[in-house]
């Protein structure tokens, strides 16, 4: 069992998402940076869809009532066990009674903590991913007790090369979205040439990007959207939909991020800059 001493800024249990219920309006949810989450699970021999803790900007402080084997990936947090620094992207053996905490990440924005056996939390509609209105809790809070599962399926621990994301690259690769064609040449040029910065009102639902200025376009009828869809709003704000995105939306869908770029974007912090690169 793990006792939560401090929650961090926004920590939650996530797996690869909740599939099969989007037709009734239930978001997919799931880890924001699937690359880092999968790496954490692989390191300790968990199946890649095993639920992990995702934490943002400020990590939680956790008390381990029992010894455990964990791995931490994603943003470059400094990991401390009982005050001693532990490495990222490899196995960490946690002693009984140890306290784990983090200092702010040097690079990146979201960290992932995988544990051998996974977290034994409620499965709702086929997934452990926390989401308001679906699971009991939408995030991990102070004094929560998180149960650890017995490693039912012990895979051989994979020796994987530490292969974290490249946090430096500004490039966000996108496909043209369904409504890209309705944009005028001036907006297309701005989207191609401008550098955009991440707004602080960004969360698991959407990454918000300002800087296009007011734009004129016809509204569209509400249509399907998915994580990675870039919506253009009349104020010129771009909403890049993330894991907790709604299933349908009424703004023009101008781009669709590649999966790799969605992972990269999940690691960008407010005021960090990005540029869009259209791929075909």
């Amino acid at each position, binding site marked *: 069992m793990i006792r939560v001493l401090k929650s961090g800024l926004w920590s939650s249990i996530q797996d690869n998402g909740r*599939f*099969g*219920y*989007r*037709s*009734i*309006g*239930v*978001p997919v949810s799931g880890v924001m940076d699937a690359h880092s989450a999968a790496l954490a699970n692989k390191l300790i021999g968990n199946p890649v869809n095993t639920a992990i803790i995702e934490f943002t900007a400020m990590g939680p402080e956790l008390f381990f009532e029992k010894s455990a084997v964990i791995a931490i990936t994603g943003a470059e947090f400094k990991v401390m066990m009982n005050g001693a620094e532990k490495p990222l992207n490899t196995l960490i053996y946690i002693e009984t009674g140890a306290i784990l905490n983090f200092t702010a990440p040097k690079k990146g924005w979201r960290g992932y903590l995988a544990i051998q056996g996974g977290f034994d939390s409620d499965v*709702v*509609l086929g997934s452990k991913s926390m989401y308001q*209105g*679906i699971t009991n809790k939408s995030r991990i809070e102070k004094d929560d007790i998180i149960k650890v599962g017995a490693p039912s399926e012990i895979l051989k621990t994979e020796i994987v090369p530490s292969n974290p994301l490249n946090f430096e690259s500004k490039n966000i690769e996108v*496909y043209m*979205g*369904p409504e890209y064609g309705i944009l005028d040449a001036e907006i297309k040029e701005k989207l191609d040439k401008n550098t955009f910065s991440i707004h602080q009102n960004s969360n698991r639902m959407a990454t918000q990007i300002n800087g296009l200025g007011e734009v004129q376009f016809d509204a*569209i*009828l*509400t*249509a*399907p959207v*998915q994580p*990675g*869809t870039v919506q253009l709003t009349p104020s010129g704000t771009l909403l890049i939909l993330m894991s907790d995105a*709604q*299933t*349908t939306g009424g703004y023009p869908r101008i781009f*669709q*991020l*590649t*999966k790799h770029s969605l992972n990269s974007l999940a690691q960008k912090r407010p005021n960090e800059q990005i540029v869009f690169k259209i791929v075909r």
Partner: protein
Amino acid sequence: MNVTVRPFGAHAILLDWPAAIDESTHQEILAVNAAIQTAYTEVLVETVITYHAIAVYLKETASLAQCVSQLENFVRKNHSVPVAKGRVVIIPVCYDACFALDIADVAAKSNLTNETLINLHAAPLYPIYFLGFLPGFPYLGGLDKRLHTPRQETPRLQIAAGSIGIGGSQTGIYPSNSPGGWNIIGKTPIKLFDVNGDLPNLLKAGDCIKFRSISVLEFDKITQEIHNGSYQLKINEL
């Protein structure tokens, strides 16, 4: 069928009908959606339908190009697949001002009495085109033109689950507490979405809704019956 088929990212395909809200498009979409569910089980994760589109979400192992060309041929065939016959779900609504925060406002803007407003709102069969926005939120057609009312300029931070609203040319039910900008004209005690139920969602695309006006007293009685598990929802065949 006048449908365009194109990739929507690397693992999804979008089928678009001409942009319109109409019943014949809706019926075609229901039929094609049902056909895709049976014909593409091996590559399919799930589909999402809206007024004029189907998003087909594919497994990452599926070949996108192959699926696009298959679906192009698929939509050219005539899909007279029998879609499960829709149901009419009777939703009891209390239009009393204690729940209907904006009913007086909407009535004034439409030059109607509260009573006429309620009659106009409770009269039609509202087709459910699809669910989206929030878990279990139905996008309905069929609101009487006299009731069309612009959304509130400043959305409320919290609208109670079960609230019935009018936003522009649409009416709908909030399945859960949420912020929202629609004008609230009533409330239902019925739970539209309950993850602990046998089925999480009460309503589905292809069903219709009929509202039935109830008193505050009946609202409380139904609330109690739902709590006891003795309430029987009225569902008719279409």
